[in-house]
């Protein structure tokens, strides 16, 4: 058969070219994947290289005396007005008796964190028995010392160009040799609120702020989103109105988040009168933001439930509501939960809408409720990134690592729920 022979010939002629094209396409696909992975790798490497050192903090051990003359001058404890800083200073002077000049001593006092006095104050408040005793206490070092120990300050530079002086370096080195200087786990990072002293700054306030906001968000957005999805899927008549609503919900998911912040400012703060910076407002704004995500995911989950289940239930005499709540919803719930968690993790990472409602603020006290002033984790990152003190750079990266950790956990939870509970038909 001449014609089939001819076809074969033509195929053979073009075969090399087709194979080449396929290889090229495969190669470009691989290239794209590699580029993506490399970018991600560089990002993570940079983040961990910069941020991992923030999880430890340099501490100095000083022999301090809880002097009764200073703390209880008249025989009675006078904690609020006692000069604890003075006690820390005399401990430093005892450690380095050769330092005498007034200026030199000021230099010396700067190697320990300004929080040392408050730490002593807290200790004696907890345990008044300490009065009159000498204690060996680990105090956080000042952030310049911390940066020097971590190698973030180049000691070979001219003295005038670096924040730590030659003298201070000598003192720190002598403490290190005698074992009075160590790096410990940076507990302050997880137990303190914000601070302008890097060695005291922590993310607990921001974490609690984010936590309260997400509570408000989930409590509002989940039931409303699921109810809207059920109504639209199961009960709403198909007409122009429901089409319009559907289009609008899909559009709402694409609205830039800052717009929700403006809405929150206009409605919740200026009209309803909820105080600025409260997690309640943040949660309300974020629930508006996540609602469309939850509605869309929930509708997809309801759609995936086979119609045969509804028909069987109806056939056995169940009402529409019984069909929905006894049969459709339990089967769609894993999908709804997955959508909710994805929406929540988006809400956790949001900072733009919070700008508008006053959550970008310096707040030291850890919030204890829904109406206390608070910030959120991404906002804390933004504030630290903008701080002039050098030691905040590594703390910024550390806060990003913590935020990424939470996002990863939430997404993992979503994946596990989907894998474990989702039914295939």
């Amino acid at each position: 058969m001449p014609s089939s022979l001819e076809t074969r010939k033509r195929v053979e002629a073009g075969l090399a070219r087709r194979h080449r094209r396929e290889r090229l396409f495969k190669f470009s696909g691989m290239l794209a994947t590699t580029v993506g992975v490399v970018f991600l790798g560089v990002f993570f490497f940079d983040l961990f290289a910069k941020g991992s050192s923030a999880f430890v903090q340099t501490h100095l051990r000083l022999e301090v005396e809880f002097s009764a003359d200073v703390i209880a001058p008249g025989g009675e404890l006078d904690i609020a007005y006692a000069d604890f800083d003075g006690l820390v200073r005399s401990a430093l002077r005892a450690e380095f008796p050769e330092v005498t000049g007034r200026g030199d001593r000021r230099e010396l006092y700067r190697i320990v964190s300004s929080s040392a006095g408050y730490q002593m104050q807290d200790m004696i408040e907890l345990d008044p028995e300490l009065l009159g005793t000498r204690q060996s206490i680990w105090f956080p070092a000042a952030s310049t010392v911390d940066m020097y120990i971590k190698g973030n300050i180049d000691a070979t530079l001219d003295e005038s160009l670096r924040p730590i002086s030659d003298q201070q370096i000598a003192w720190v080195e002598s403490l290190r040799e005698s074992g009075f200087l160590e790096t410990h786990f940076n507990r302050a990072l997880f137990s303190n609120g914000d601070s302008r002293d890097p060695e005291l700054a922590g993310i607990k306030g921001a974490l609690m702020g984010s936590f309260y906001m997400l509570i408000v968000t989930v409590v509002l957005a989940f039931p409303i989103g699921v109810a809207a999805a059920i109504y639209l899927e199961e009960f709403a008549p198909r007409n122009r109105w429901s089409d319009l609503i559907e289009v609008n919900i899909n559009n709402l998911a694409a609205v830039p988040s800052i717009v929700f912040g403006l809405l929150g400012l206009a409605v919740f703060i200026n009209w309803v009168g909820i105080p600025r910076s409260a997690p309640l407002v943040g949660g309300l704004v974020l629930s508006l933001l996540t609602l469309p995500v939850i509605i869309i995911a929930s509708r997809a989950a309801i759609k995936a439930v086979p119609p045969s289940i509804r028909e069987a239930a109806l056939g056995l005499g169940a009402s529409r509501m019984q069909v929905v709540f006894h049969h459709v919803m339990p089967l769609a719930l894993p999908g709804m939960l997955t959508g909710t968690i994805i929406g929540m993790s988006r809400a956790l990472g949001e900072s733009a809408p919070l700008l508008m409602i006053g959550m970008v603020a310096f707040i030291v006290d850890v919030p204890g409720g829904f109406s206390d002033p608070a910030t959120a984790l991404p906002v804390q990152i933004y504030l630290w990134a903008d701080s002039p003190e050098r030691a905040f750079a590594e703390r910024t990266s550390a806060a990003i690592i913590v935020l990424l950790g939470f996002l990863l956990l939430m997404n993992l939870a979503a994946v596990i729920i989907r894998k474990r509970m989702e039914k295939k038909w």
Partner: protein
Amino acid sequence: MTNPRTVLVLLACAVLASGFATDAEAQANRDYIYIVGSSTVYPFSTVVAERFGRGTEFKTPKVESTGSGGGLKLFCDGVGVDHPDITNASRAIKSSEVERCAGNGVTEIVEVKIGYDGIVIANAISAIEMELTRKDIFLALAKEVPGGADGELIENPYNTWKDVNPELPDVRIEMLGPPPTSGTRDAFVELAMEGGCKAIPWISALKKSDSSAYKSICHTIREDGAFVEAGENDNLIVQKLEANPNAFGIFGFSFLDQNSEKVKGAMVDGHKPTFDAIADGDYPVSRSLFFYAKKAHVDVIPGLREFLREFTSERAWGDEGYLAERGLIPMPAEERGAVSASVRNLEPLTMASQ
């Protein structure tokens, strides 16, 4: 049967109800000081707030960074616990803002000048030393510069610093600076650009005859790529300067102070931007920093009077106080004494004193 739906709905209601209930309470008697305003004053205000919170029985004040203009807007919205007690500003309050305040019932405002801040033009530490005049800065950065004849303006033709002034190096003009929303930008334009602009006699004469033309010549920055708006994050500008030794950046003195091994400040009109030169008023590109407090809130908001005392105490704003360590440039001792006395008596601002 316990219905999960009912539980959820009840929970939502409970949270909302408790939220609103505590709100009403918090609104009725706010027990913390609420501060808004300039991002330049923010680093100083927060340090005082934190020390105040740790050292006294009062709660730590909340400090929001909204910019000088935004802060004054919130501040002037009214009297009462919903409105801020203090606003920080990197410029003096305008008479239009005082009027707006008065219109909303904020009649007695206490002005507190806290010190000075220098605006520096910096480049990488490894790069060349620059000796600029304000006229050089104006000619290098203005959108339109004087042409040959008096009164003639041409599109800025200068590409390198050498074009501007033959004594400067042959390096392309590349300046990273803050966006127009920033108080630093306002102050830079007013002090550096206008300062250089005034050095040209016919433009200076224009100030009286046609002040709006004068302003538009002196305050308009070129948009052809030589001036790059680098956002409000000054740390980012420092990083970019390190990477590019030919670029210059504009930011506040405190950033230069904290990053002295990475960047250095250019001389302006023969003065280096040092602590002493700014404090003495020799360095020309420096401005005063302020905050404004509502007299009506004193003794209503717990701790406000004590906070004013703390901010104006020697241990805070003195020559060796903790604010100086953060880069605030203190006022001379007599001026500090005068301001702190007027703060103690809560003397309200009068427009005549402006």
